[in-house]
Structures are given as C-alpha cells and as structure tokens.
C-alpha cells in the first residue's frame, strides 16, 4: 500500500473532527496526484458521511475530476443520500444538479426527497427535473398503441418506476398542493397501481385534488389526457373528469385523446356514457373527418358506446363516410352506419349519392340488404357503376339480384350508361344487366354491343349477358361473334348458342380451337347434345397443358359425364399442377 493511501485509510476510518477537514483540504488545495487519489478512494467508499465530501466540494474539484465523479454517480448513492440528510440547501441543490447532469433516473428518489426540501430553490429545481422526466416518459408512452405497462421495454419500465417513486415522495410532501407541476407530473404517470395518487384524488376535499383540477381547468396539456381517461372510470373523480372533457378541443388534442382511449379499450359502460355530450364526438368535428382510420374506429366505438341517440350517431357516421379522405376510414364509418338501426336509412342514401369511390357502392349494397332501395336515383346508379368493380363478385351478384325489379321498372336508369362513352361504366352496366338477368330489357343496346368488334372486351361482356338472358333474334350477332379474333368473344358466343337451338356442326368447328375455353364450351355443348366428339375433345383436353386441364374440369363440373368421379380423383391426387389438384378436389367435394 502506498504512503498516501495509508493516510487516506486513517482519515476515512477516523471519527476525529479534523479528518473531514483534512480530506476537504486535499480535495481543494491538494497536489493534483493526491487529489485524484483522494477522489478515487472517496468514490469507492460506502461511508456516506465521507462520500458526501465529494458532493460538498464538487465545484472545487476541477473539470476533469468533476466529470469523473459524475461518470461514477452509480457508486455515489451513499454519499448523495447522506448529503440530502444534511438539510443543507447548497448540498441538496448540488445533488439535484448532479442527478440532472447525469440523467440517472435511478436516483429520482433523491430528487423526490429534494422536492420536499424546506428551501424553495431546491424544491423548484427538483420539481422541474421530475416534471421534465415525466413529460418525456409520457410522450414516449403516447407514441405506443397500447397501455404503457404492457408495451414499454424493460429499461423504460424501470425508468418509469424510478421516476414514479420520486414523484410519490414529492406528492406526499406538504408542499405538493402548492406545486401544480408536481401534481401534473404525478397525474400523467399514475397508472392503476398508483394507490398513493388515486387515494388522494378520491377525496373530494383533498387540497391536491382541488389544486390539480383547478390547474387542468385552466390548462389541459395532451400529456394529461391519460389521467382524465383513467379518471372517467373512477366513481369519485368521473364527474370532474367528464366536465374537463366536455369542451371543444383543437385537432391535436382530439387526436391525442382518441389515441388515449384507443390505448385503454376496457373502459366501463358508465365511463363511456359520460362522453355522450362531448362536443368533439359529434358530426361536424373536422378532426374526425381527417384522423387516421384506427382513430376513427375508436371515435365511432366511443360514440356508439356512449349511448348517443341513434339519429345523432348516424349523422356522425355519415359525415365521416362522406367526407373522410381515407377509404378505410369511410368503410369503418359505413359499417357503423349500417348498424345504426332505423336512423341509418336516410343517411345511407346520402352516402350512396355523395360519397367518393368506393364508399357509395358499399352504401348501395347496404341499402339493398335493408330493402330500402326500391327506387334508385340517377345519382345512385351513376355511383354504383363507378364503384362496381370495387365490390366483390359475391356483392356484385347480390346487387344485381337486388336491382332486378328496379331495372325492369325503370330501364332508363341504365339505358344512358349502356350507351355512354366511358368504357369502364359501360362494362359495369353490362355486367349489372347480366347479373340482374334483365338482358331482355336492354336487348337493343346489348345486340349493338355484341355486334361491335371494336371493343372485344365489351363485346364479350355483352355476349355473356345475352347468353344468360332471354334475348331473341340473335343468330346473326352470335354467328358474327364466332368469327372474332378474341377467344372470350368466341367462347361467349358459343355459350349463348349452346343455350339456344343451334346445329351441332356449329360446335364441331370449334373442337380444335386454339383457346381451351372455346374448346371447353364446344365440348360442353356437344356432350349436352350426346355427340361423342364432345367426350373425345374433353379427353384430349385432360391430357393437355394446365390451362386445358382446368377448362376440362370446368366442363366436368357442368356436364358430369360417365367416369367423372374416378377421373376427378386421379387429377386430385396425381396431377402435377397444384391448381388442377385443388380444383379437382373442390369438384369431388361437391360431387
């Protein structure tokens, strides 16, 4: 052991009143080498009384040694604690400054202790530090999608616990009621386990509660919304919290509030009912028409859960379904509207007439399901055709069935669209005619389209509609379609002819068509007419490529010839193509 270490050993262990004086002397005026050694030894000791000397003389150590002390603040707990117990404002301020400079939140309990100091300056600095930490933690939590206690990582949770401990100490001091920052910091981090906080808040006459509520009535920061949302669920506080939430907030606050509600989905029914008259939860709230879809979902769930009158809820849903720019948000609003009971009818009609793509189409579907679209307007029909391809095939079929009688009664609703210039709208109109099975009502328009080879996609669609409808006098048009270069046109023409009295040789011509779909239609027609060429074509297709085998399976499903089941089994188990195996298995299930 070196000579100076021996001196330090004696001084560190001695109870003599001159020992601290000597240590202080070396820390302030000592030779730099001895000073460094003294600092090292004091940092290593567990004697808080001696270590507190480093706090006392921190400003005199010089930059390097001060940095070293701050760097090793993890070993300074005993000294910092002792320094706090000395009740010397200068020492307490130094402790708070050290903790602030190092941002070591594990020492938050010391800051909490300082927040109870008799010295106003010490209290001010300590409260300021606790406030800053609380706001930072709260903002981190506000960026999460769920409750902080579930989603925060372990390190953040630990920091949160430390800061909460400091706040608990500050909150229980006699100065807490005079410090809105202490109260706000405690409120923003108080979770459901913070009984020390909620216990005080439940007492109506508690000065801290009164001070906090008075402060929040003047200034309500977004960080405080967590407290208010939790308070809604506490009987003693719910009234005051609801009172604070019943005000017109700016957009940023509304979004923060909705996020807070989204993070705490398990609010009780009485808590939700208190939001019934909240001004930010009504139609015309611009923020709801601009918020992200998940927030819209939350807002509508809150509105529905609040027991808001159905007409008011329907108007809110409609305003979002019409005015929101995100299709997903409009979809959510529309679903909510569709479940708003009788009040939904008029609002759904407004959506059907005014909403952007694809919401209007979905609204029309809902109206049809409710049986409230007996007489669609021209505007509704226009929107339906615009949104037609956004509907699923099943929904399109449902719309077609639902509009059949309306189209028979008011064919003029669709006639203009069948002759319109927009190709997409015409195709949608033809598809609607086919699914509504009203081809006979629009036979003139369909015949013209089926004969027009300039747009083979439209021609094919028209032929398909004709094929399924009872349109007469089509022979010339269908035979013209058989000569088309587009396989879809030929296939649909064959299908239409198959449903009518056509001669067998018409189909025999197509058993060698390059398109599997055309050959499949020909084979099906021939099998239906008991011609052996049909089975021969089908067998040939079953040994062809994947597309041919799939088309052959389609013929199988429609005609069910002899030997269907063993062939389908063979394909389901041994075909090299997964799609063919799947299709064959589907057929077997329905066999």
């Amino acid at each position, binding site marked *: 052991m*070196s*000579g*100076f270490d*021996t*001196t330090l*050993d*004696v001084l560190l262990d*001695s*109870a*003599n*009143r*001159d*020992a601290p*004086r*000597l240590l202080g*002397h*070396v820390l302030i005026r*000592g*030779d730099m080498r*001895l000073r460094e050694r003294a600092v090292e030894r004091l940092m290593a000791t567990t004697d808080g009384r001696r270590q507190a000397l480093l706090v006392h003389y921190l400003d005199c150590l010089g930059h390097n040694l001060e940095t070293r002390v701050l760097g090793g603040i993890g070993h300074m707990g005993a000294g910092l604690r002792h320094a706090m117990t000395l009740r010397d404002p200068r020492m307490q301020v130094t402790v708070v400054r050290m903790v602030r400079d190092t941002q070591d939140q594990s020492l938050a309990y010391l800051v909490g202790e300082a927040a109870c100091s008799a010295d106003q300056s010490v209290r001010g600095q300590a409260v300021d530090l606790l406030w800053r930490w609380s706001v930072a933690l709260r903002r981190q939590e506000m960026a999460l999608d769920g409750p902080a206690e579930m989603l925060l990582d372990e390190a953040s949770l630990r920091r949160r616990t430390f800061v909460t401990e400091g706040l608990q100490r500050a909150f229980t001091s006699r100065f807490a009621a005079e410090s809105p920052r202490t109260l706000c910091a405690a409120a923003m981090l108080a979770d459901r386990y913070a009984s020390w906080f909620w216990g005080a808040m439940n007492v109506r006459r508690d000065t801290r509660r009164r001070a906090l509520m008075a402060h929040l009535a003047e200034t309500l920061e977004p960080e405080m919304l967590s407290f208010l949302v939790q308070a809604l669920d506490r009987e003693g506080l719910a009234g005051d919290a609801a009172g604070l939430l019943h005000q017109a907030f700016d957009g940023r606050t509304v979004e923060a509030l909705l996020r807070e509600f989204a993070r705490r989905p398990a609010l009780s029914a009485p808590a939700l009912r208190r939001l019934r008259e909240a001004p930010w939860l009504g139609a015309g709230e611009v923020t709801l028409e601009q918020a992200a879809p998940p927030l819209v979902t939350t807002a509508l769930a809150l509105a529905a859960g609040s027991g808001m009158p159905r007409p008011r809820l329907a108007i809110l849903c409609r305003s979002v379904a019409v005015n929101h720019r995100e299709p997903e948000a409009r979809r959510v609003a529309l679903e909510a509207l569709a479940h708003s009971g009788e009040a939904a009818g008029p609002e759904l009609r407004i959506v059907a007439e005014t909403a952007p793509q694809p919401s209007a189409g979905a609204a029309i579907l809902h109206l049809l399901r409710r049986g409230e679209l007996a007489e669609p307007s021209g505007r509704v029909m226009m929107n339906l055709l615009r949104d037609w391809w956004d509907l699923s095939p099943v929904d399109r079929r449902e719309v077609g069935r639902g509009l059949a009688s309306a189209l028979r009664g008011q064919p003029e609703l669709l006639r203009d669209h069948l002759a319109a210039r927009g190709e997409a709208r015409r195709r949608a109109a033809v598809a609607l005619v086919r699914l509504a099975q009203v081809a006979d009502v629009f036979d003139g328009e369909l015949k013209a389209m089926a004969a027009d080879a300039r747009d083979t996609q439209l021609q094919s669609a028209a032929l398909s509609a004709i094929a399924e409808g009872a349109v007469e006098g089509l022979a010339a048009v269908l035979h013209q379609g058989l000569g088309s270069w587009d396989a879809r046109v030929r296939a649909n023409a064959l299908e239409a002819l198959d449903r009518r009295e056509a001669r067998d040789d018409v189909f025999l011509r197509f058993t060698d068509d390059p398109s599997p779909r055309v050959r499949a239609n020909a084979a099906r027609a021939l099998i239906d007419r008991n011609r052996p060429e049909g089975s021969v074509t089908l067998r040939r297709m079953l040994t062809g490529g994947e597309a041919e085998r799939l088309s052959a399976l389609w013929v199988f499903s429609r005609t069910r010839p002899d030997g269907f089941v063993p062939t389908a089994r063979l394909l389901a188990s041994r075909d090299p193509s997964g799609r063919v195996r799947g299709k064959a298995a589907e057929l077997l299930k329905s066999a």
Partner: protein
Amino acid sequence: MPSLFTHDVPPLFTNAATAVMFIGLAALAVAAVVASRRQQGQRDRSSDGLWHDLRRAHGLSRRETRLLREAAERASLNPASLVFMEPHVVMRLVDHERATRSEVQELMSKLYS
C-alpha cells in the same frame, strides 16, 4: 452436612448485600464506559489524536515525527496533521537545513508515495 452459614446469617441480610454488590458493579461499569467515551470524545475532538493515529499508521520514528512537527509549525499549519496532505511543506525542510536530503526523501516516500 448442613452449610456453615445457613443458620448464622439471616436471609434478608444476604439478599441486601447481594443487591448492593450488583448495584456497585453496575455503577462501576457505567462509570468506566462514560469515562472511556469521554476519553474517546476528547480524542476525537483533539488534533493530537489524529496526529498520533497518522504517525502510528505510517510507523514514523521520533526524529521523523519531530521533523514533521517542525515543518508544520514553520508553515503555520493548523491542525498540524495537514502536513500529511502537503508534500511541499516537507520539502522545505531541506531548504531550512533542518534535515538531510535523504531523510526528507525517505519521509516523502513514506507519506506521499
């Protein structure tokens, strides 16, 4: 065989004597502790106590102790133990020709190495 005292000394007297003896011993013990504490307190309050502790810990000889004391007095150090923190004060002993260079070096090595 019966005890020699059982019938000579009354039991009441025996109990009183024992009690006095115990009280006396306890008073002595308390006095010893108080005296020891007072002595320790005096020692903790006096600069000489720390001086002796340091001297003993470093194993200083009488001459070395004398030289150190002289150096502290020349530098007007109060308490004198501050000399254990001030190497340059010891170095001045050579300047004042109170000690040889080798003596001072040995002292420096003992105290500040």
